[in-house]
């Protein structure tokens, strides 16, 4: 080791480690860490990499299921979708980088989740995103963040040829200073091509390939991802990573060809904490050591210190392990794709991560100390005694009539049409997209193979497909972390049922505030308990996920926001029900939501009502039992349309069915706000032949037809509803 003096405790604290953690590092090493070692520890011991506050909770989630192929711990989880194919998927946050630079933050968020998916050998086939911002009507900054984040997501996904098939966005004041950018990716692979990330075989070679390494995002994992943002983040701007979708497209094709040719022992992407994290995790999983030669890493600019090379978050890079006899072949494939490939190290049997510069060892750490020995912290959950969040600003009078209330809801930022966003995304590339955004409750993708070949249809012309939905209502989780999270999982499952899909697996991203605060710890614990209970009730395994903590601004924590992504399969895409009313004269049926109330509803938000302390409990077995008959009826083609009753309640859902189909409706609905606008779980609006609706236990309330939505005294022309629903377009002028 060099003669330089160790940086010491003060710098360790500056990098986010506690005094106790520093003392433990000294104990584990038997000496004080030198600079590069301290940098490695500070990153791998951050919440982002170590899950030191959340691991115990996450271990309570169910991770077994009949379709499960690869569970938590790998770059992405995977489920079997039949025909020898698996779908790998994961959702991940890029919140803090996006708050600093929304376009690049969102773009590199997409780039990162794509790499997670092709790192397991799957070709990315779809992107979804889940976004949260402050109130656009009141906040110029929120409009700016929205516009640029949407631009960044589109820039990356559109340019790399992966369709963005769905997603959601909500606007609430608690996200004003801390927006959320979560991106989900699905990939498809023949089952035998899946690869894990465990390095194995001493003397095997570590090859870094992809973009050159620069000073991007240095300190990102610890400074950006695990510290609360202050009001002035300008100084953090230089360290934001810049994404290059063209480089990633080459990297993707190169990685998949390397796997197709069977040239790799292991593959891992470089994400947060760069080379440090990738190399340490590969070594840890394989229970081996690694020697890394930082002077061999191709640099974009000269003069990077070893610690900078180890922690750089330059994008579009992958690390693979190959046996020595295959290295030349690997480099030849890289060259064909015009991708830099460079051997930078070897697998060893030392169990240590050793870092060399020009042959001199500049760092030497036990892999176990880096990856496994980070202290775990017990949470101290306590339910807050006073409300955490101020009531939302009132925008609708309590005395407003039903028509005014409905148009106000349709025009509200949370319920208006997302078309101005979705149109900025290529939803079509790869030719699998059967249901585009806002055509059905879940996105539906044909199950053609990774090369775009669709298997021969079934005996009756069936065309197998997968469906995916992403959801998470922060406001309802804030009102009741347990029930709100259960409702989010149920909504995903209901979305899948609407297109006839059976859930196979779930991924989640837990976006919360500072878990060291007892009330945030309580939100997190209750939410994870709800997530686990809902998954067990549905028999859906959690295949992986991501945790984003410390999401707070000066005014306090964000709404607790567990974002849930669910993937399912359906036997015939032709039968996937649209949400739009299809035919004049069809009967309209309603299955009212379970546990419906106005507490924490969109209507109460517009009226400026405070969040209630708790939501009505949801009868989980009853909720789950509702899904199968809906799914079966859709699969049998008995219904013209199906739409779940979500934010805004039944009347808003019916209006959405009218607008999507450009057809009016004549209905009778109780003349009270709770029936019209109450929100709960697994409610549905159905249309079709009356006997089919009755067989499902739906209450038949009217008929499709006409040029207006009529409900008793209420009558609003479709054109008026459409104008209200189009309100979001004004934000993109």
């Amino acid at each position, binding site marked *: 080791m060099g003669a330089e003096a160790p940086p010491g405790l003060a710098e360790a604290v500056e990098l986010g480690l506690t005094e106790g953690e520093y003392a433990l590092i000294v104990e584990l090493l038997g000496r004080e860490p030198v600079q590069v070692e301290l940098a490695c520890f500070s990153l791998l011991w951050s919440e982002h990499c170590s899950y030191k506050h959340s691991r115990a909770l996450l271990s309570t989630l169910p991770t077994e299921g009949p379709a499960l192929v690869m569970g938590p711990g790998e770059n992405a989880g995977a489920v079997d979708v039949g025909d020898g194919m698996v779908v790998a998927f994961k959702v991940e946050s890029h919140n803090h980088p996006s708050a600093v630079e929304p376009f690049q933050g969102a773009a590199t968020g997409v780039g990162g989740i794509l790499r997670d998916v092709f790192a397991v050998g799957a070709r990315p086939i779809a992107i979804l995103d889940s976004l949260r911002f402050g109130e656009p009507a009141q906040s110029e900054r929120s409009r700016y963040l929205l516009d640029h984040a949407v*631009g960044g997501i*589109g*820039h990356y996904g*559109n*340019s*790399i*040829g992966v369709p963005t098939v769905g997603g959601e966005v909500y606007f609430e004041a608690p996200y004003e200073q801390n927006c959320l950018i979560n991106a989900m990716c699905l990939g498809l692979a023949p089952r035998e091509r899946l690869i894990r990330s465990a390095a194995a075989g001493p003397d095997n070679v570590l090859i870094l390939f992809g973009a050159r390494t620069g000073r991007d995002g240095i300190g990102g994992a610890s400074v950006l991802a695990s510290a609360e943002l202050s009001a002035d983040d300008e100084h953090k701007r230089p360290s934001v990573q810049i994404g*290059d*979708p*063209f*480089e990633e*497209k*080459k990297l993707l094709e190169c990685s998949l060809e390397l796997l197709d040719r069977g040239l790799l022992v292991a593959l891992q992407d470089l994400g947060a904490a760069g080379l440090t994290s990738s190399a340490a995790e590969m070594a840890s999983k394989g229970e081996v050591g690694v020697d890394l030669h930082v002077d061999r890493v191709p640099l974009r600019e000269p003069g990077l210190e070893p610690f900078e090379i180890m922690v750089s978050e330059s994008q579009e890079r992958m690390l693979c392990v190959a046996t020595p006899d295959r290295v030349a072949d690997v480099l030849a494939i890289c060259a064909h*794709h*015009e991708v830099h490939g460079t051997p930078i190290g070897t697998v060893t049997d030392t169990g240590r991560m050793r870092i060399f510069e020009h042959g001199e060892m500049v760092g030497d750490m036990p892999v176990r100390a880096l990856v496994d020995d980070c202290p775990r912290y017990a949470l101290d959950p306590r339910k807050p005694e006073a409300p955490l969040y101020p009531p939302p600003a009132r925008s609708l009078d309590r005395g407003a009539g039903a028509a005014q209330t409905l148009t106000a809801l349709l025009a509200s930022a949370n319920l208006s049409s997302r078309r101005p966003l*979705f*149109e*900025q*995304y*290529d*939803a*079509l*590339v*790869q*030719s*699998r*997209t*059967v249901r*585009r955004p806002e055509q059905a409750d879940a996105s539906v993708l*044909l199950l053609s193979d990774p*090369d*775009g*070949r669709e298997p021969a249809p079934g005996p009756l012309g069936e*065309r197998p497909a997968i469906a995916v939905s992403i959801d998470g209502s922060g406001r309802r989780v804030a009102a009741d972390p347990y029930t709100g999270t259960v409702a989010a999982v149920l909504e995903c499952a209901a979305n899948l049922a609407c297109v006839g899909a059976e859930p196979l697996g779930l991924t989640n991203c837990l976006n919360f505030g500072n878990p060291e605060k007892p009330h945030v710890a309580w939100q997190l614990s209750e939410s994870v308990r709800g997530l686990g209970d809902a998954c067990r009730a549905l028999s859906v395994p959690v295949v992986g996920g991501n945790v984003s903590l410390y999401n707070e601004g000066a005014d306090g924590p964000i709404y607790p926001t567990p974002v849930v992504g669910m993937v399912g399969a359906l036997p015939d*895409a*032709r039968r996937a029900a649209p949400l739009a009313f299809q035919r004049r004269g069809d009967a309209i049926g309603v299955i009212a939501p379970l546990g419906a109330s106005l507490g924490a509803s969109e209507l109460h938000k517009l009226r400026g009502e405070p969040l209630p302390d708790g939501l009505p409990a949801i009868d989980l077995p009853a909720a789950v039992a509702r899904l199968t008959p809906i799914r079966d009826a859709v699969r049998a083609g008995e219904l013209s349309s199906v739409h779940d009753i979500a934010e805004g309640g039944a009347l808003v859902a019916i209006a959405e069915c009218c607008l999507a189909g450009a057809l009016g409706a004549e209905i009778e609905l109780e003349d009270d706000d709770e029936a019209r606008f109450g929100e709960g779980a697994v409610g549905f609006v159905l249309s079709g032949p009356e006997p089919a609706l009755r067989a499902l236990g739906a209450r038949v309330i009217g008929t499709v037809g006409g040029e207006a939505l009529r409900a008793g005294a209420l009558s609003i022309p479709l054109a008026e509803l459409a104008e209200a629903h189009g309100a979001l377009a004004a934000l*993109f002028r």
Partner: protein
Amino acid sequence: MRFGIVRFPGSCDEVDALRAAERVGDATLLWHTERDLKGADAIIVPGGFSYGDYLRCGAIARFAPVMEAVAEHAREGGLVLGICNGFQVLCEAGLLPGALLPNTGVRFLCRQVDVQVENASTPFTWRCERRDTLSIPVKHTTGRYYAPEEVLDDLEAHRRIVLRYAPGHNPNGSSRDVAGVCSEQGNVMGLMPHPEHAVDPLTGSDDGLRLLESMASAARVVGHH
């Protein structure tokens, strides 16, 4: 009859174009560094972001070795269809008149639009009737067709505007609603809408198939190779 689908680094829709072409004929991919068109009778230059499109859409791709062979193929009367980025490449290469500018809305736009067949006697449209309306998606940031007024007059006079956006459907501010134009000899065509994404009613429409069927039957008749 065989289609050759050009693949640049950064192409995105080449596999879609390949599978779409396979519905009406034989099809193969052509890597950008190769000058051999592998016996293709008709060439498709597909959509995407060739070489990242960092300088100007299509500006670098036009110099690819494969494009020399494509230009030669066009000079000999062979069929060449440029879709989206491929249209941009053919304009940059001088095989088609005009240029594509950023959409008036500035942003990327993905939308199903109606286009009208203005000339049904080209090798790309002869399975259509004049005034037929086709439902085909667009998805681009740089799709506003531009040519000087006198060039547009000349294109109209010689019926080289093959497709126009239907009234109210112009998504990008293209001059005179131009969605697709052809070369003077009629054997090279470029368009911003994506016919390869309109080959199956289940994924939105199969109207684009008629353009590919036209090409396949025309190539059989012409028997280029």
